[in-house]
């Protein structure tokens, strides 16, 4: 089967799931009578509607080729960083460093993937941005909360730009016998990370009792994590045929994506709450902000990338 054919099969599966979800939501809406369950169903309906839009955008970018895919992820980084900066108390003196983050680092980081310069891609933000941004901020001459401000900006670009960019960086991999199909690994990673979130939410709503970290992320439950995590891992195992992995290896990779994704969601939830909010924004209806949707991806992508790069 060619890469294209595999893509169409997968997309068919995703569409089938979305249709079933939309129908199920319709049934639930008809049944919901109590005030509380109505609110939950209304949120569910807007979440599913947003999923249709997100899947459509992704499918178009995927079919349009690698440059469109890079642009899509660059936009995601842009909006996620915008959300992070909005909630971070920056000062006038941070104006130039922030300008560099948005208008130099994002194009450069994604440009390096397009150009195929892996060596610089991997160190641009952890090394060079880490040195240059605080230096530029220091030039502005405002020592008030200096360390706090520069640390927060560095954190923001690490999560929203560096980590997220590892997803389209999968296009850089040259895996013997898997030529021309790298884009499917992006699909694989996205599908498992997102389905893990969705399934943890579903299992949590159905069976959730034991809260894992109520102060950090009140909706995360042990039952949701185990049920949703195992289901997403199984899903990943069943998708081995689009990857260069064997079924068992695919199961292992999926498990890793689920675990990292869970920690991504938990960590960014802690960041969010330390900044005093519940959602990163309101960009994606029912979900919150862009960063609420890609928090798990930002932690899963770099680890998935490196394991694939070293072992395959």
């Amino acid at each position: 089967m060619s890469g294209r054919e595999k893509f169409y099969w997968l997309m068919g599966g995703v569409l089938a799931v979305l249709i079933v979800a939309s129908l199920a939501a319709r049934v639930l809406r008809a049944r919901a009578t109590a005030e509380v369950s109505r609110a939950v169903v209304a949120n569910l309906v807007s979440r599913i509607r947003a999923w249709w839009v997100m899947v459509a955008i992704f499918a178009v970018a995927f079919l349009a080729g690698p440059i469109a895919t890079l642009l899509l992820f660059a936009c995601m980084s842009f909006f996620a960083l915008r959300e992070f900066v909005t909630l971070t108390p920056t000062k006038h003196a941070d104006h130039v460093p922030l300008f560099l983050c948005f208008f130099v680092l994002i194009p450069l980081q994604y440009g390096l993937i397009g150009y195929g310069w892996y060596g610089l891609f991997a160190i641009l933000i952890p090394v060079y941005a880490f040195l240059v941004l605080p230096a530029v901020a220091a030039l502005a001459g405002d020592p008030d909360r200096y360390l706090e401000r520069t640390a927060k900006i560095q954190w923001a670009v690490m999560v929203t730009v560096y980590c997220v960019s590892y997803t389209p960086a999968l296009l850089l991999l040259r895996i013997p016998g898997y030529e021309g199909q790298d884009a499917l690994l992006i699909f694989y990673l996205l599908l498992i990370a997102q389905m893990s979130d969705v399934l943890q939410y579903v299992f949590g709503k159905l069976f959730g009792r034991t809260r894992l970290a109520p102060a950090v992320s009140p909706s995360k439950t042990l039952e949701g994590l185990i049920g949703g995590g195992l289901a997403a891992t199984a899903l990943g195992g069943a998708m081995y045929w689009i990857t260069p992995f064997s079924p068992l290896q695919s199961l292992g990779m999926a498990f890793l994506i689920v675990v990292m994704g869970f920690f991504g969601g938990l960590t960014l939830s802690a960041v969010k709450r330390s900044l005093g909010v519940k959602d990163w924004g309101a960009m994606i209806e029912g979900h919150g902000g862009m960063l609420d949707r890609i928090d798990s991806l930002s932690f899963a992508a770099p680890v998935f990338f490196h394991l694939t790069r070293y072992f395959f």
Partner: protein
Amino acid sequence: MTPLGAILCGVMRVLVGAHAYWQAPPDSAQSIYFANHTSHIDTLAIWAALEPRLRAHTRPVAARDYWDRGALRRHVARKVLNVVFVERHKEGHGDPLAPLAAALAEGSSLILFPEGTRGTGPLPAAFRSGLYNLALRFPEVRLVPVYLENLHRAMPKGTFIPIPVVCTVRFGAPLARLAAEARESFLERARAAVVALA
């Protein structure tokens, strides 16, 4: 809307969002939108936040010394925003409010920054008396307070390029009209209405 107007709206959405939040439902009745002023893109932010049917008959009040300079800026001011120019540094004679009164008499709504100049913080400075004088002369026009959140962070005084920060444009309920209110208390009440949205 002109193509350039559509582009400017799109740029505002991407950079700062500029989405509207209405405390009272939006109304196309003639209004003066008065807001805190912290950046050069405040005018564009309110303009982009208004829905097209309101935007069509709303004219921003703009300082001639800034907006009537440079080919592009002048084109945007005159052809896209259809601004009402005011002279900030009035030279002797003439009523500086005359162009504003003329626009109101024509039936246009106005976007006005009663501080007269940009501030540096999240809260507005004291209001100048222009808003009071216009309110007296046009008692039937609605006075809508507007708070621009975060724009002092997107483009602080002294910077030239805005950075992306989500800015919400909050429209409050129209200011109540009190009979025979003194100028100072009116201006303080108007300012408090903007601050209350912060």
